[in-house]
């Protein structure tokens, strides 16, 4: 139902862009008394039925026939996925959470038409009990600093006019008319921007090397193949504000001297592909992509490639091989991709979030950007805060915030009153950080010092019920499956390490297993071909470093302290809770449970095979792990 300005023509000068923007802003202002209903259609909210809510709001507007102007908008992820579906009523910004279909009618009648607030749908702080009317009042948002995600949840991702109204493509106009390519690179250098995809390499240095590399054409690539499990930053960005990624790439193309851009998106992200495709079409129509952009001599276009579903393709050389239509196997990087990348031509690859940082840097200057963050890590970083934390969601914080603040202030602490055990950062190649380091500032170098890394921004919180050996096994399983098999250390080393971990979690660990694991890990990091293999041992090394006692309990006592590894803990029946219903007795395949009617049942530890059937089947939670 959003308004479409009719007959937009190609914008061939910065002046025309400014005129269009002013016109759009004015349109928005004149309708200041009007209401707008924004419904989040990010993946998590959509999964909980937000599309239907959007349709219902559209219908309600149509049927009401009221005089005031009401817009309904589908917007990208607000980040607070825990409380989805989220509906925001503007201009007041009233933030409704966990909205269900029956609520739509009431919201429309009370809030949209009469400005009455429905208390029940507001967010209530679980600690203070205070309800929040707007997003700004919620602790989850208060400590965040949103630069890249600033417009997420506000603009309609499939409407370029929304992006322009918010100041979109002004940075591109500035870059093309007021700045030389070298000046742009200087500005990015001044900003101190480092790659958001995991490596943390200086963006300006990469651009400069690619610009000065010999060979044409040059290529610019956006890595949207977000493969880390538990990470969805790039997904939300590409879904919620695709134009910001495009604008960054166009500016980058101009700075580097390239007119060919590629976006490599994960196949599992259909909505991101859809929104990016629409965004590219719209940008082409308005002349932000194509020949002579904004009337300048610069031409640039972008093509989307969907990934085939291979984790290793997040590695730059593997990604390029995939773009060339080959299997995604990395190559040794003695010749850098900025010199010889895609089709052996100079290629600059950056992650989606890095690209989205470019427009604000050009717009507000490197000086401003570098005022945010720490000495070595400037700006903000988006994290997907997930796992056993109260507030699962997408958060953007200034670099340097402590892990504790992230997990407790923004994340609201650990779920179900459990104790914190570790936070895993950096994806499968990252590490687990224990409680004593929670006051570490989040920063590229600080996390590396702890044996983990920033990675692309996955942050998985684990509580006391998590077995760290099992976590290490999970990541190794993942990496072994995703190893491309080209180099021996990764292909064989991971298999050997996984074999050892599997033995340990079965209670068949041997005395020298830890030493063996460490030896293999060192071998791997020293000899593997690409970053996947080189860092593959991180989850094992970091868990051995901080949770050695758990490994030892598995190996020496055949005991899993977190009671996760099958067979390494026992089941007993709590006689107070047992209702003697007999369900467990029937479910036991080993006849290990005895007990008559009205008599609490008992498990015979001698006969028990620890299969867990009784635990799963008991309706009264009377079977407990010890």
């Amino acid at each position, binding site marked *: 139902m959003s308004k479409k300005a009719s007959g937009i023509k190609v914008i061939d000068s910065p002046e025309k862009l400014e005129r269009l923007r002013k016109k759009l802003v004015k349109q928005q202002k004149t309708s200041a008394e009007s209401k707008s209903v924004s419904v989040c*259609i990010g993946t998590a909210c959509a999964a*909980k039925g937000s599309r239907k809510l959007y349709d219902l709001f559209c219908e309600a507007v149509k049927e009401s026939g009221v005089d005031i102007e009401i817009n309904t908008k589908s917007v990208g992820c607000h980040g607070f*996925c825990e409380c989805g579906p989220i509906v925001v009523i503007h201009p007041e910004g009233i933030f409704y959470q966990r909205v269900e279909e029956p609520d739509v009618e009431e919201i429309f009648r009370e809030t949209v038409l009469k400005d009455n607030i429905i208390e029940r749908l507001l967010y209530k702080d679980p600690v203070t009990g205070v309800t929040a009317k707007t997003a700004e009042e919620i602790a989850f948002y208060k400590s965040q600093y949103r630069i890249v995600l600033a417009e997420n949840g506000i603009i309609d991702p499939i409407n370029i006019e929304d992006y322009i109204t918010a100041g979109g493509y002004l940075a591109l106009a500035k870059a093309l008319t007021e700045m030389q390519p070298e000046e742009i690179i200087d500005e990015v250098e001044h900003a101190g921007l480092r790659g958001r995809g995991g490596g943390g390499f200086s963006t300006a240095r990469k651009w400069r090397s690619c610009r000065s590399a010999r060979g044409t054409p040059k290529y610019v690539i956006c890595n949207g193949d977000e493969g880390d499990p538990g*990470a969805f930053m790039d997904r939300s960005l590409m879904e919620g504000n695709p134009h910001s990624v495009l604008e960054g790439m166009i500016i980058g193309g101009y700075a580097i001297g390239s007119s060919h851009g590629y976006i490599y998106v994960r196949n*599992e992200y259909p909505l991101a592909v859809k929104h990016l495709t629409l965004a590219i079409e719209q940008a082409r129509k308005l002349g932000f992509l194509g020949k002579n952009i904004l009337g300048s001599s610069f031409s640039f276009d972008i093509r989307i490639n*969907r990934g085939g579903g291979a984790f290793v393709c997040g590695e730059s050389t593997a990604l390029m091989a995939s773009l060339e239509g080959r299997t995604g196997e990395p190559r040794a990087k003695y010749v850098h991709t900025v010199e010889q990348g895609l089709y052996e031509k100079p290629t600059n690859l950056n992650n989606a979030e890095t690209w989205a940082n470019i427009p604000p840097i050009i717009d507000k200057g490197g000086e401003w950007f570098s005022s945010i963050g720490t000495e070595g890590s400037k700006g903000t970083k988006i994290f*997907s805060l997930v796992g056993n934390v109260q507030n699962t969601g997408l958060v953007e914080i200034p670099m340097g915030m402590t892990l504790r603040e992230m997990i407790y202030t923004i994340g609201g602490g650990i779920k179900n009153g459990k104790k914190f055990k570790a936070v*895993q950062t950096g994806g499968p190649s990252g590490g687990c950080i224990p409680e004593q380091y929670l006051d570490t500032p989040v920063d590229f170098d600080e996390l590396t010092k702890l044996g983990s890394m920033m990675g692309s921004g*996955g942050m*998985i919180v684990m509580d006391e019920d998590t077995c760290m050996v099992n976590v290490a096994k999970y990541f190794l399983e993942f990496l072994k499956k995703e190893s491309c098999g080209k180099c021996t250390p990764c292909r064989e080393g991971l298999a050997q390490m996984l074999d050892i971990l599997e033995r340990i979690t079965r209670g068949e660990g041997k005395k020298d297993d830890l030493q063996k694991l460490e030896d293999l890990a060192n071998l791997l990091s020293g000899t593997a071909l690409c970053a996947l293999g080189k860092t593959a041992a991180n989850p094992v090394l970091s868990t051995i470093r901080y949770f050695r006692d758990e490994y030892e309990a598995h190996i020496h006592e055949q005991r899993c302290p977190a009671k996760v590894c099958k067979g390494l803990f026992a089941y007993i029946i709590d006689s107070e809770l047992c209702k003697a219903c007999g369900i467990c007795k029937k479910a036991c395949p080993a006849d290990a449970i005895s007990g008559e009617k009205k008599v609490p049942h008992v498990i015979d530890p001698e006969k028990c095979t620890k299969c867990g059937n009784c635990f799963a089947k008991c309706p009264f939670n009377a079977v407990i792990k010890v």
Partner: protein
Amino acid sequence: MKEEDKIISTIVKRYDADTGMLIPMLQDLQEEYGYLPEEHLRRLSKKLSIPLTRIYGVATFYASFRLAPKGEHDVTLCMGTVCYLKGAPQILEAICDEYKVEPGGTTQDKLFSLQAVNCVGACALAPVMIVDEKYYDGVSPKSALEIINGLSSGKEEPVEEGAKS
């Protein structure tokens, strides 16, 4: 036979016979048939003048390609870190046991194909199961089996997922 030749020709033309676009071509072909039929891969190999082994290599390297027809429904189980920690392996085990199917495989009656994927990026919903593009959150072994039990052949309409304009 002619009709099928045409499909390959259209796809190849769409990408100007650029062998660098092999992956998008295979994706289009799979969209057409739900899998990559062998005879079409042979045709593609001839048309592009690249060895069948290379096409086969690509088709088997990437997880999203399948060489056998899929079932009527798609069941995708997320095995991302959070889903894993919240019990996805037990759900997978329950489904595999109940329907005698392996991840990546299809049930004998062709009712559904099962996929265990790395991460669908919807961690707030963990453990997540996706059935014909509809997301189910907080799934347990029991509820997963109930959802799949509810699938019937030839009746269910897949839920349209995509942005409203």
